[in-house]
């Protein structure tokens, strides 16, 4: 206001006067209070720097972008949380991408493109290194527990009660690579095993190796139909009587009619995958924690910190986590632990 010259003032007066003259006839002028709101929506050039947007805004009027990438297993949970968060803070844009845990860390999170990375396994050492090289500090937050589920076709009756961990290891190992079911158990039919599973960018794949095949074990066979789309795994297993696959419990829980889950025996009898058995710890070794990793640098922004807090506070919600998505919610103690961890990270960041 202070630096306006006479020239500008007269121009402005002229504009207002001529505008007003034309418009009062139509009678519909309003006081201009939209200056502050219209600023962020001004069509400015595409500098593409979402890092700055929204910083420094007051807590009641949160706005800005939150970019989330990572695990397809955590994707539905992140989407459910974002949908509810969005209803309370309509000016915040939450963008969620399903890239697989490893794909998200390597291509998006550790290069500074995203604020959160979902993961269905803990972050690996080399990913830590890549992140710290780019000044990104991941904060590990557990969001739920999953029961990694092995599925077979509904018409599959020959496996009987279920599969033992040893049998799973034989089927998926890179060393033995059985082609026929009869190679695994001589009583089973002499039919080809069709295997569907997630790609090696997926945390589900990594966790399966860790839990079934062992870190030092034979490794995962590579002659299987790999996909990042859990739906494709379900469709594949549904289509063939002699197919087998594995995925997160949430996708199975939405499709219980299409395929059947395999009970797994880890030495103490066969245990069906379910929310209860995963929570009680009976479903071993395939129940696993799911994580999201906010970047500490992003937590300095109020809207990102608020979303992280919202997620953690609702991580015990049976309605969202269990009923809508199909994972085991955190317990109260765990939630408090995560919230404390998050709050101290937010404090450090600011």
């Amino acid at each position: 206001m202070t630096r306006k010259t006479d020239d500008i003032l007269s121009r402005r007066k002229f504009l207002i006067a001529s505008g007003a003259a034309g418009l009062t006839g139509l009678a519909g002028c309003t006081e201009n209070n939209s200056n502050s709101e219209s600023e962020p929506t001004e069509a400015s050039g595409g500098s593409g720097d979402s890092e700055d947007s929204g910083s420094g805004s007051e807590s009641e009027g949160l706005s800005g972008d939150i970019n989330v990438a990572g695990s397809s297993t955590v994707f539905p949970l992140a989407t459910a949380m974002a949908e509810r968060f969005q209803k309370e803070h309509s000016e915040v844009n939450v963008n969620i991408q399903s890239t697989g845990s490893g794909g998200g860390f390597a291509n998006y999170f550790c290069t500074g493109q995203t604020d959160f990375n979902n993961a269905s396994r803990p972050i690996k050492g080399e990913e830590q290194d890549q992140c710290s090289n780019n000044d990104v500090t991941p904060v590990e937050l557990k969001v739920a527990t999953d029961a990694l589920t092995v599925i077979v076709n509904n018409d599959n009756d020959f496996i009987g009660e279920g599969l033992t961990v040893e049998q799973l290891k034989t089927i998926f190992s890179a060393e033995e690579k059985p082609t026929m079911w009869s190679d695994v158990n001589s009583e089973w039919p002499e039919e080809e095993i069709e295997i569907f599973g997630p790609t090696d960018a997926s945390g589900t794949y990594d966790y399966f190796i860790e839990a079934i095949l062992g870190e030092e074990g034979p490794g995962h066979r590579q002659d299987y139909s790999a996909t990042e789309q859990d739906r494709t795994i379900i469709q594949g297993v549904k289509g063939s009587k002699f197919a087998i696959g594995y995925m997160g419990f949430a996708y199975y829980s939405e499709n219980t009619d299409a395929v059947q889950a395999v009970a797994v025996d880890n030495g103490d009898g066969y245990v069906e995958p379910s929310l209860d058995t995963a929570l009680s710890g009976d479903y071993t070794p395939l129940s696993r924690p799911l994580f999201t990793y906010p970047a500490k640098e992003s937590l300095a922004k109020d809207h990102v910190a608020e979303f992280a807090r919202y997620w953690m506070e609702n991580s015990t919600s049976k309605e969202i986590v269990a009923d809508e998505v199909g994972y085991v919610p955190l317990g109260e103690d765990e939630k408090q632990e995560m919230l404390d961890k998050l709050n101290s990270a937010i404090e450090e960041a600011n």
Partner: protein
Amino acid sequence: MATEQDSSYAQGFGQVSRTAGLVFRYLLLAATMFGIVTLAVLLVYVANDAIQPLTADAGWHLTFFLTLVLPTILVGGALYRRNREALKLGGMVVGALLVSLLFSGGVAIVFVDIIPPLTGFSYAVGLAVAVAGTVLLTKYETQIPFTARVAATGLLFFLSLFGVPGYFHSIPELVQQAPVVPTDWIILTLVLGGLTALVVGQYIARVREDTKAGVAAGASALVLTALGAIVGPFVGIDANALVVVTAVSFVPTAAYAGGSVITREELKPGLVFAATVIVGALVGAVAVDALGFAGPQAWTDWQFLTSSHSGSAENAGLYPAIGGSILLMVTVAALSFPLGVGAAVYLEEYAPDNRFTRFIDVNISNLAGVPSVVYGLLGLGVFVTYLGQATGTVLIGGATLALLILPIVIISSREAIRSVPNDMRQASYGMGATRWQTVRNVVLPEAFPGILTGTILALGRAIGETAPLIMIGAPNVVFNLPTELSSKVSAMPLQVYAWSSLFASEDFYTKAVPAGVVVLLAVLLAMNSIAIVLRNKYESET
């Protein structure tokens, strides 16, 4: 001798079997129909899933049959026998109304939700001032040297749109900071209604060959638009929405209908047909409402069009993806049109015919066939990795898609330019015109409809592309409309892809996906129909 030979030929003819030819003909027919029928079956299947016409009450179907279908068949049949041209006009009016309604929806998304009306208005004022200044400058065309004029015009646009930070406020800033501003509907009436009034006025002035009639038509168009805003709240429709619909859909359609009838009196019965369809649809809608018949439980409904993604398929919507697709198309058009047409004009009018241009020729044709996923990788490599832009933004998505359709735009523009008869160029040169004057005044106006058709068809391809957007890292789920060029963007095909692959429940597959496909196809067909109408008009004029 000669006659004997003739008769022996004739005998030979009599013995030729027609079976081979007949079989060949029907095989060709089968080949033609195979793709079309397969596609039609698929579309009917998808549309049935999306709209579910069988869930409606029998009374609903009966009411619409009585009010809409039956009168349309009767009037249409009568016109078909007596005056086919008029029937064609009636069909065009109804089609124009439908397509322009669709477009008014898009315009409303852009000018109400994405760009706040005040911001849009401020830039419109800034542009208007700059354009007025330029017109003034052109008046003294002969007194100012060319370079000075170009520099002055550039400076004028720059100052009025951007100002000089710290010294001189730009006009958009001034307008946005004004203490008193018009309400949204007045802004929309002035900007959109004003544009429509200009176009309508010029159109009527041309067909009536009377400037006064044009001014009157333009003024009444503006008044009609304003009326929409005043009437709107009384009938329970948002004033802003009604202004946009009136300005973009109702007024142009009415002007088209009126203008056609003015030029050709005998086409008047066509308007009866259009009125039968429109009134029939309205009466039917009111009647089923009054009688309490439930319509089909369509998945492609208002809620689907206006809400964003949700965890349950019933509440999921396409709104951010529709807005994203529109913004992407604007970006793609803004980037590919000048580049593509520029390249086409150079290659057709200026380039010498040597080895180098032939090399470029061949490569442009090859580029048109490169798979879209390769363009996606190119976009990822160039814009994200090399230039360090954020992934998945409107700008990057638009730029990648623009690269994808650039070869198509160039090729179709070249076709259009090449189809301008050489005689016209020679005549222009014969009048002493320079090459630049010939291109500007003869070639481009003549080729413009063809160029536009090609560009719209190319945009139609870009709007359906998914692979490049996946490659550049566009997010699978977005909850808000993109408001800037640097916002993350989703698009209609991408949203359909995400629903069909990432969400496990069967509901998404059987409800949200078909609904999304129907919307995508409707937009695509509307765009293509405009291209076809333009082409037909162009062909009938030459």
